[in-house]
């Protein structure tokens, strides 16, 4: 037997907070997107370890659906980043200052 579910969950929680930090701290939208992927993946890890714990497939199915959703988010996010770069705007989340108030 390998490690029990608790250990998986600790890894998932750590990974989730790493991703959260990345989203909140980084300014490059590309890296923010990458950090979002980490967040979604940590949730996947939690889902899969719980699925193993309960011995039913729902968690794994959920994880697969999340994968597709993550891919979709990346498509739209990258499309937006390319469109922003095409307009020669600065790629910096903090320097989007047109809209403020």
């Amino acid at each position: 037997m390998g490690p029990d579910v608790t250990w998986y969950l600790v890894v998932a929680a750590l990974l989730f907070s790493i991703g959260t930090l990345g989203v909140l701290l980084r300014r490059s939208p590309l890296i923010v997107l990458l950090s979002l992927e980490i967040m979604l993946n940590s949730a996947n890890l939690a889902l899969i370890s719980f699925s193993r714990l309960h011995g039913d497939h729902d968690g794994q199915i959920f994880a697969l659906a999340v994968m597709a959703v993550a891919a979709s988010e990346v498509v739209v996010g990258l499309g937006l980043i390319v469109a922003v770069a095409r307009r020669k705007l600065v790629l910096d989340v903090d320097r989007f200052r047109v809209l403020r108030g």
Partner: protein
Amino acid sequence: MGNVLVWAIWIGAAAACLGSGIAVVSFANPFFSALALIGNLASLAVLFLLASAEFVAAAQVLVYAGAVMVMFLFVIAYLGGRADTPFEGGPSWVSFGAVLAATALLVEIVVAIGLKAGDLLADEAEVGAAFGSPAEIGRFFLTDHLLAFEITSIVLLIAAVGGVILGTKTRAEEQLDRLDKAAP
């Protein structure tokens, strides 16, 4: 052999997973971050395998490594130097708040898990060899979770449409470009 080997692989994968996660958020260059994320995804796939989710593990590598990360690298290479942004300058109250929020989140979850660890998490269900196999997953996708399956496809379609829309240059943009060129 079995037990020690599983633990060794697990520790290796978990360490790689966390290490590459930290690398993703701390590299200055998005290209390196993306490469670190590939490492992250691969080590997660190993963890999935150890949690008897073989199909999800394979799909993880196939979907993420095969499609998502290629797309990422393509865009980063396409943007070239414009993709680089320096790391946060000095500590601002925003970053302080972010660290605080993330730490609070982490503590909350770890405490929750820790409290839980005693009773429920210890006894894992017995699963057969077919658990997590493509046949089982497929059966659930076509029966209990049919709606989830269909919605997934709709979400992907919307994303594809969005990618095309945002990726093409519109006439309004071309007009702006012409104005930019005309201006000295």
